């Protein structure tokens, strides 16, 4: 398999503050790769270095085997970027947004027109092609940004929080489109705050915090490693229960008013716990990526 992204010891400092600290990872062709982390963890900074928006302070950054410092133009011609902010051009119509953007890639007029029509069709925006960007709903604007990021038939798609602020319907629609794109073998790197999104879409992901990579693996693998097989949440645990959990060495987080138990496959002590302590205040559920995320990055508010 060939490597699409290869970064080594990538570091970015702003006025002495280290936003990204010696990050290294690589992404193979066809992989849907997630970059997760709390606000301020360095996700967007990493992403911006990946598409050549900001230069790294240190480290190497190779995409398609080329050095971003030297071959930035050839690299950027082959990637698509869906930025976090709405960067659609409000002075242009929906269709013009695509056609003018194609121009930035030096695409011939005829090809640009065809590609624009194709993408409007794929993202169900045909009926809005002459609308002003300002008239679009949040979901439609997001789809148009996605469409625009695909205008140059990229080999690598970079998505920075593609579904933030969307209603559930729009979000699911975006996911379906991204899954369709994934089937075509497109390599994708995504940042998101929605663990459900990451679990559903990503083949592999890293969780970053304070500019460092904490863990790296597939969603399933990370859940197994860091959040046990299933979870028991107990509201208002009493002393006896906490002592029992500690005595049995069951992995847990004590949040004061709530106790979270990470239960491995071996169910013995848990069954006993259920019999002895749980009447109505226990919730049994499967472990999720969100449990992994919170365990690794802590529960304190950021920013």
């Amino acid at each position, binding site marked *: 398999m060939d490597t699409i992204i290869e970064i080594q010891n990538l570091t970015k400092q*702003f006025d002495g503050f280290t936003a990204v600290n010696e990050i290294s990872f690589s992404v193979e062709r066809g992989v849907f790769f997630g970059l997760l982390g709390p606000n301020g963890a360095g996700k967007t900074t990493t992403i911006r270095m990946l*598409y*050549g*928006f*900001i*230069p790294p302070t240190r480290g190497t950054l190779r995409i398609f085997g080329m050095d971003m410092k030297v071959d*930035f*133009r050839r690299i*950027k*011609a082959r990637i698509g*970027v869906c*930025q976090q*902010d*709405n*960067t*659609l*051009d*409000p*002075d*242009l119509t929906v269709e*013009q947004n695509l056609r*003018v*953007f194609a*121009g*930035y*890639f*030096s695409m011939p007029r005829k090809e640009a027109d065809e590609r624009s029509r194709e993408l409007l069709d794929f993202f169900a925006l045909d009926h809005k092609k002459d609308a002003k960007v300002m008239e679009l709903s949040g979901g439609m604007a997001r789809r148009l940004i996605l469409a*625009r*990021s695909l205008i*140059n038939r990229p080999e690598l798609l970079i998505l920075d929080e593609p579904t933030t602020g969307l209603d559930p319907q729009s979000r699911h629609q975006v996911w379906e489109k991204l899954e369709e794109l994934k089937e075509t073998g497109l390599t994708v790197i995504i940042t998101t705050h929605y663990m459900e999104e990451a679990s559903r879409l990503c083949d592999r992901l890293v969780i970053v915090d304070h500019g460092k990579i904490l863990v790296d693996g597939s969603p399933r693998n990370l859940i197994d490693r860091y959040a046990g097989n299933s979870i028991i949440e107990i509201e208002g645990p009493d002393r006896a229960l906490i002592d029992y959990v500690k005595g049995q060495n069951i992995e847990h987080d004590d949040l004061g008013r709530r106790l979270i138990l990470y239960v491995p496959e071996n169910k013995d002590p848990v069954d006993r716990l259920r019999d002895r302590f749980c009447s109505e205040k226990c919730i049994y559920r499967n472990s999720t990526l969100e449990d992994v995320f919170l365990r690794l990055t802590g529960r304190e508010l950021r920013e």
Partner: protein
Amino acid sequence: MIDPNAFSWRFLRVWRRNLVVYQKIWKVNFLTPLFEPLFYILAFGVGFSGLIGNVNYGGLDLSYTAFIAPALIATAVMWNSFFETTYGSFVRMYYQKTFDGMLATPLTLEEIIVAEIVWSATKSAGAATIMLAVLGLFGFVQFPAGLLLIPMAFFGGLAFGAIGMYFTGITPTIDMFNLPIFLFVTPMFLFSGTFFPVSNLPGWAQPVALVMPLYHLAELSRFFSIGTCETAPVISIGYLTVFLLFFTLLALRAMRKRLIQ
């Protein structure tokens, strides 16, 4: 400091984007250069002419209206390009994040900035062309030499577009453009030999006027319109060239510092 690889003809794609947007509103934009010279000529030619005698300029005895008419083109060049790269570019950069979107493509920031400056000069040249037709009809411009006002307007537009872009690079908020307009553009509009010859200014103020880029553009404008001027055209062209290159470099530096940390 400036990477030569950052420049390519691709900047024309950004220029074209601005043209596509302009085509939507050209009918409104068309009216200003058409009516503005008419208003000035009416106000000064009809209203003022009784109060002011003829103006002695470059060895010619000119009616006041004939004196100011060519300078109107120079001031229009200034207003058009300066406004385009200050308010226009600031809105695109800051509020619309248009540059951010462009930077996710093979375009470089340098190309975007150059395109914005060249676009502002294009608008200036367009306005000058319309004004030229109006002033030509009144007989204030001699032809065919007057046609050179069009490339001159483009050239002058580059100079004022470049300094406008520099202000955009260093201005924290859009309201702050009042400052360069109040301190730089308006005094220049009034005191650069536009509405009266610089020789009428007190001695100490004359060198100040000669440093103003609008003075040199108004000089060139008169030279191409009526064939005479106070300062040799080669000096004016030289001065504006240095001014243009200097502020383009400053603008590129300021914008890089502002947008790419």
